[in-house]
């Protein structure tokens, strides 16, 4: 009975031949994640995924900040679909949760209002002389990793287990609002029981923490933070989550949304500066990882190639708990092999 009902909370995820669309902000704040996703899909799983260099924004940030009108967003989305069509793909994988929400919304509107679809085709043709097909399958990359989580497990060098105690690592999972709160049926577990990240954690040996504010927004929310004076509201949301998770002593936070990832990571520094408060016992802060970084880390990829040195909260204590090998001398080594200047150390957050 339980299994039958759970089937209703699943979604269709394509098996192969994906068209990848990169995120605007992830490449700045978590620059190794997208490269790790492509590497995992191509090298570990042997899948075909297209990374087209002509792609561009989905307008998500501007759209949700009321700067970009829907007609513009719809036409920009149509151009992205035309790139996919041109490359001969039908399965669209947008890296960002906001993009995933935007595509889901645009397609929903096209399905319910064919005139809008005609309008989008007309606008795109007039502007670029391009045509497009609507993707057969749109999924978020976290859905793809979730689908293949048990295929990846035998290839992993490490597990989510504390090597000193032998107990599973305790993980807070945070899912972006635009993943399943706008269109619940498009998320694994829908909006009620989101399981996309929890499934990965459980499959790879960790323990998911169920804390009171688990489903609370991270505070990103576009309009909330765009104006500097309003950011007090944004950070108050994040603080509420940290206060709620603090008694459960999480080893790290796992997210699938660029905004959540950024805010849960960076606001820890801001709160520490403002209130001299960190939400772990030792004063390091709680590391915030993307699901690609976590998968890459467990598969044995070099943490510095995954971009861990660019996080606000540094992850060395987590590496030590899992037993991940890393060379501290190579932390700030550039691709050319030359050592880059070290960033300033914050006084309020501990770093090794």
């Amino acid at each position, binding site marked *: 009975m339980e299994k039958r009902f759970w089937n209703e909370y699943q979604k269709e995820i394509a098996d192969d031949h994906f068209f990848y669309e990169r995120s605007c902000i992830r490449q700045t704040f978590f620059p190794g994640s997208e490269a790790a996703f492509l590497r995992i899909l191509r090298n570990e799983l042997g899948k075909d995924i297209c990374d087209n260099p002509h792609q561009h924004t989905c307008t998500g940030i501007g759209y949700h900040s009321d700067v970009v009108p829907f007609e513009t967003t719809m036409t920009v989305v149509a151009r992205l679909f035309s790139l996919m069509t041109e490359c001969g793909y039908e399965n669209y994988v947008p890296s960002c949760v906001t993009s995933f929400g935007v595509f889901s919304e645009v397609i929903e509107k096209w399905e319910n209002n064919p005139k809008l679809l005609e309008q989008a085709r007309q606008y795109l043709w007039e502007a670029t002389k391009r045509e497009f097909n609507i993707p057969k399958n749109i999924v978020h990359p976290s859905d793809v990793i979730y689908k293949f989580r048990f295929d990846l497990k035998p290839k992993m060098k490490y597990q989510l287990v504390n090597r000193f105690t032998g107990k599973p690592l305790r993980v807070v999972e945070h899912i972006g609002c635009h993943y399943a709160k706008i269109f619940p049926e498009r998320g694994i577990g829908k909006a009620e029981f989101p399981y996309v990240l929890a499934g990965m954690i459980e499959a790879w040996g960790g323990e998911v923490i169920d804390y009171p504010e688990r489903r609370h927004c991270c505070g990103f929310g576009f309009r909330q933070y765009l104006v*500097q*004076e*309003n*950011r*007090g*509201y944004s*950070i*108050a949301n994040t*603080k*509420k989550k940290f206060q709620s998770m603090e008694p459960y002593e999480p080893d790290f936070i796992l997210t699938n949304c660029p905004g959540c990832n950024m805010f849960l990571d960076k606001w820890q520094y*801001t*709160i520490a*500066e*403002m*209130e001299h408060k960190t939400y772990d016992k030792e004063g390091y802060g709680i590391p915030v990882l993307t699901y690609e970084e976590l998968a890459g880390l467990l598969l044995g990829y070099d943490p510095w190639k995954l971009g861990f040195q660019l996080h606000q909260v540094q992850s060395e204590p987590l590496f030590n708990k899992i037993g991940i090998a890393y060379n501290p001398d190579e932390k700030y080594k550039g691709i050319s092999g030359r050592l880059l200047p070290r960033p300033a150390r914050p006084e309020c957050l501990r770093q090794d």
Partner: protein
Amino acid sequence: MKKFGFEISKGRQLNFDEMKSEKVEKLLELVPSYKWCIGCGGCTAACSAAGFTDFNIRKIHTAFFRAQYEGLDEQLNQCMLCGKCLLVCPRGVNTRSLIINMRRILANVDTVTWRPQRELKSKNEGGNNE
């Protein structure tokens, strides 16, 4: 501290575990009908003082129960103790007694002798001078 151009907004979420309820317990002891209130607002509608000031019994009642005492004493002093609220209450809450006792509890007055505790304390410290 570095200047960020904003501060962390204070949440308005109430955590009853963190609230000290001695004052509420004292009020319930003195005016047991306090807990019968259903928040209908009849008292506030009938209030004479509310026509001239921002006095609002229902609001004060809720704030006191939530242990949000800031500024309540000033609010309570606007009541003229006319007792119209007492007449309209459908639950028979002794609203006038409620207001008098809220004033006394907030002013830290000894509710047995109705003398300010500060005064009593100084007299007790003075020994047999009386």
